């Protein structure tokens, strides 16, 4: 039943898309489309949620796609969970876009693809055979590419779109190969058929690698992340939110579906590989983010970081389940899935915030912003909550999932293999590092954008954004808080999908005293966001009350003291670059080959002193530059063949003939 409703939703999305093409440039199109998508998405979200908690599974087979196979769609706990994530994000994004979309210059290039994109997102999660899956997967990439190209007049966006579509189809091809191995020579493309027979060790390893590359390139695992910081900022903000918050999660779904579900029993070293990738990704992502001063690009890099954290959880789950430690594996997987949900929530929130800033000031560059907390307090508040959540600060939701991950890491000594024993603590350190750096980065992001004084005219004249956007943002902020205060319920909701994948799940949380969460046992570790929050609230108000009781209430406004320097210009404020400087000093030389080039004018010279920082993107230089270089080289060399004389072409033919005849003469 549920699958039928969801497929109707997909159909509805597609219909909306086609209508949007028809409406093209009309003003009415924007509210109509976004209203419709919001409605459809919420229906889908509710349906998915119901089938998640009721843990029912349903299959639907349509006579489409591969003739002898048909297009199979399936909803089980896992896909239901991801559908909740997808459709929640979609619904909120649509609501946000009701306001944000008004400022869209070329709506006709956004609306149809937006609806189609939503359809694609849903389809990937619903697909139950290799062909349908890949079709939806590529369809998703294609529509999002069109959305990235929506503002195609700027050369950067075109480049971003190009890199994106290349990486996307590269990923698709690797997944294609993986499915080729899974399906075998006579093409059992149905997931059921694939589950029924497991490939041998070598093939499984190969498939794991392929899936890591394929799904990883979509999710943004280092070093396949390069498209992400280019494409996400290029798209309109609500689309960026979907791409960052939701599409990457669909990639995570692909990974879980194939590696945990289709591929059969895991081997312990898979865990090592995934863990290492996750750890590196999280740290690299956040370091890249720290170096950015473009708000949306910073957020995109943080997506990379969080994907890393999710994959750490997945790697742990693999390692534990390979050793049959079901409870712990369930803990790790729950942590990962919960972080999937959390990240989709607060990343969407943050992108909405940046979108609001963008519409208010027309600026994405933090160096040109500042002091927005005065001009747009509500947005600032919501954004602040998002920052706190993504920085894994209690009592918000980001902390809970990372806390769970840590708990899983702390259980790693139970693992028999030395490789895991020794690598997991290091990964734990990486996780802690990336969490702390994330906090640092969001102090920077919020501090430079919203705090301080306005650096430009645009920032001074900013205005608070519209109701729709604010509604969306505050809804998500509330979710962040609620998921942080009552994580037990969310964990219980996730439990069915974890059980489906691993055959085990965490202890029921709702039953715990005081609604606290207990991964393994009360005596071992527990956390109660609700109480913490209450304590803080109580003691804060207590402090405030007593202070106002005993202390003087007098307060005077005066110019900032700033260590005695009078009225410095806003330009003396700390910028994003200068804020990141200490951390750049620590990690930069290692990761970015950072060089600082200072030139002081000699005494008597009037020119200003200059400090320039050169950062190199090592990943790009090491991996992508050589590839494109090789292609260019070959293309140039081969291009000679376009300009030969007929005689030379004839000699080619002649050579081919003689070669083949020789082959025959020799062949016995």
């Amino acid at each position, binding site marked *: 039943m549920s699958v039928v409703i969801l497929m109707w939703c997909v159909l509805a999305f597609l219909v909306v898309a086609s209508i949007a093409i028809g409406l093209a440039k009309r003003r009415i199109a924007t509210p109509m489309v976004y209203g419709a998508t919001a409605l459809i998405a919420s229906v889908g979200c509710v349906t998915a949620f119901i089938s998640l908690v009721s843990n029912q599974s349903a299959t639907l087979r349509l006579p489409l*796609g591969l003739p002898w196979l048909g297009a199979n769609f399936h909803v089980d706990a896992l896909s239901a969970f991801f559908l909740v994530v997808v459709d929640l994000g979609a619904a909120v994004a649509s609501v946000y876009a009701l306001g944000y979309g008004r400022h869209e210059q070329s709506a006709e290039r956004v609306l149809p693809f937006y609806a189609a994109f939503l359809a694609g997102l849903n389809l990937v999660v619903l697909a139950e055979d290799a062909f349908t899956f890949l079709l939806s997967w590529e369809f998703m990439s294609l529509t999002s590419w069109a959305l990235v*190209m929506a503002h195609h007049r700027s050369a950067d966006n075109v480049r971003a779109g190009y890199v994106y579509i290349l990486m996307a189809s590269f990923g698709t091809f690797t997944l294609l190969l993986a499915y080729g191995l899974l399906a075998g020579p006579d093409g059992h*493309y149905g997931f059921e058929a694939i589950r029924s027979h497991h490939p041998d060790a070598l093939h499984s390893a190969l498939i794991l690698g392929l899936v890591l590359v394929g799904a990883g390139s979509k999710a943004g695992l280092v070093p396949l992340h390069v498209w992400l910081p280019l494409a996400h900022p290029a798209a309109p903000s609500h689309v960026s939110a979907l791409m960052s918050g939701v599409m990457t999660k669909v990639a995570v779904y692909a990974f879980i579906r194939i590696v945990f579900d289709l591929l059969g029993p895991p081997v312990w070293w898979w865990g090592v590989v995934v863990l290492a990738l996750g750890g590196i990704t999280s740290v690299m992502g956040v370091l890249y983010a720290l170096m950015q001063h473009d708000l949306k690009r910073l957020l995109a890099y943080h997506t990379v970081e969080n994907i890393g954290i999710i994959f750490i959880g997945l790697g742990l789950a693999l390692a534990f389940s390979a050793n049959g430690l079901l409870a712990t594996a369930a803990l790790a997987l729950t942590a990962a899935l919960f972080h999937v949900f959390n990240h989709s929530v607060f990343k969407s929130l943050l992108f909405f915030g940046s979108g609001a800033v963008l519409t208010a000031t027309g600026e994405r560059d933090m160096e040109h912003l500042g002091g927005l907390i005065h001009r747009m307090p509500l947005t600032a508040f919501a954004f602040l909550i998002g920052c706190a959540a993504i920085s894994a600060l209690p009592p918000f939701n980001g902390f809970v999932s990372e806390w769970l991950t840590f708990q899983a890491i702390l259980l790693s000594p139970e693992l028999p293999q030395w490789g895991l024993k020794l690598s997991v603590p290091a990964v734990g350190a990486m996780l802690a590092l990336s969490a702390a750096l994330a906090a640092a980065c969001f102090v920077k992001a919020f501090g430079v954008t919203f705090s301080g004084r306005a650096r430009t005219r645009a920032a001074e004249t900013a205005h608070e954004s519209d109701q729709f956007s604010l509604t969306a943002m505050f809804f998500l902020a509330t979710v962040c808080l609620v998921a942080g205060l009552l994580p037990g319920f969310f964990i219980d909701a996730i439990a069915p999908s974890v059980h489906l994948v691993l055959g085990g799940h965490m202890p029921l949380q709702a039953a715990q005293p005081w609604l606290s969460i207990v991964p393994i046992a009360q005596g071992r570790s527990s956390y109660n966001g609700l109480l913490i929050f209450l304590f803080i609230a109580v003691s804060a108000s207590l402090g405030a009350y007593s202070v106002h009781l005993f202390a003087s209430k007098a307060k005077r406004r005066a110019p900032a003291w700033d260590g005695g320097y009078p009225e410095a210009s806003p330009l003396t404020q700390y910028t994003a670059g200068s804020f990141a400087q200490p951390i750049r000093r620590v990690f930069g030389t290692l990761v970015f080959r950072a060089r600082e080039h200072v030139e002081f004018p000699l005494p008597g010279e009037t020119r200003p002193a200059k400090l320039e920082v050169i950062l190199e993107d090592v990943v790009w230089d090491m991996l992508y530059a050589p590839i494109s270089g090789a292609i260019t080289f070959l293309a140039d060399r081969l291009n000679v063949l376009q300009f030969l004389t007929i005689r030379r072409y004839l000699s080619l033919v002649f050579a081919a003939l003689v070669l083949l005849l020789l082959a025959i003469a020799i062949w016995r």
Partner: protein
Amino acid sequence: MKGLLDGTTLVLVIPAFAAAVLAVLPGYRLSARLNMVASFLTLLAAVSLFFVHAQPGTYFLIDDLNIVFIVLSTIIGFTTSVFSASYIGHELETGRLTPTNLRFYHAMYQVMMFGMNLALIANNIGLMWVAIELATLATVVMVGIYRTHEALEAAWKYFILASVGIAFALFGTILVYMAAQPVLGEGLQSMTWTVLVAHVSKFDPALLNVAFVFLFLGYGTKVGLAPLHAWLPDAHAEGPTPISAVLSGLLLNVALYAILRFKMLMTLNSTAIAPGPLMVVVGLISVIFAAFMLYRRRDIKRLFAYSSIEHMGIIVFAFGMGGPLANFAGLLQMTMHSLTKSAIFFAVGHIAQIKGTQRIADIRGLTVTHPVLGWGLVLGVIAIAGMPPLGIFMSEFLIVTSTFAREPLLALALVLGLLVAFGALMLRLQGIAFGEPTGSAAPSKASYLPIFAHLTLVLAAGIYLPPMLVVWFQHVAQMLG
């Protein structure tokens, strides 16, 4: 008497008659219409072949394999004639063509159709050879019709290389005859297809091997496989766009059809060399070579010509791999490619006419100035690049997955080629369709019907293949073995 009225003869008679009429008919509007009508009637006749199953005669043969080809080529022949009607008018206004040219052009168009249909339904390898050469020579003269320096060079190059190909193909045919003659005795029956197939197992394998080498090279020249491809890009780029469309959409297929026929022959003789590996290797070479060649193209029609080489490579690769899945995929790929590529050439033709240039660098921001054409082109290129939900995705999916399970390395090489080609196509597409628009923004009077008819078919096929078609293809795949 009835013989004259059944589809088999009609698909030959109508074009021949039309050619004769068009050769003398003045006035391009009328002749363009007549051209359309004739092509349409041929299409009808071809479709009728589905329903009335003609028994194989001594000269003509209708089986499941060639019906697919005939219907496909007549469909594209018809849509192309529609397109050319709106295209030629513009050429006449700009004075690139004279009325005399046009009369010649239309006559030749029908001659070419006649040749192709004859080649497709011929039950006699000699007849098939004659027909294919006829079609080739017809296209040669049409390629040169603009009489510009480049056009003449292209036509000349095409002519010379084609002649060598013709010679090879003939030699191969003779060898097949000589292989058959000891078994079947002298005379026609040892060139009659159905008889050959029946007795091929008794033929001398060594002779068959040599024969296949020559046939493969001879007809492969027309398929445009690297390194025999040299004529193809220039012929596409310099000839009138309708001809580029039919070249990519039809002629390549017809030559491919010939190769397939002889492949069947080879596979039926167990002692002869299996033709598969040769086709696989040459196919791969063509794919990868064409993929790299795509990057340095400045002329938009040449670009898509190279993409045709690439796709022919894929198709030959698929048929070379063999097996029901790969053959099915190959057929599907061939059909989809013909439809898509001709649609692309239609779009490109209009674009080149509007912008007055074929230089890719001079065409920008098309989706802004000409949304319909621009998005049509985007859709077409996305389809040709193998993206869902369009048909080619399905065939490439089948080819790659089925190959990777059997021959991982080959599949990797193929995927490499596909990716490189994809990169080039998208790079150019983004340049053409997006960015700040340049060139004239004059609205085009073109009829978008052919373009979108093809694209709709491709889209539909990508999502839903009618069971009847599927059964058909599967049966043909079985035939190909």
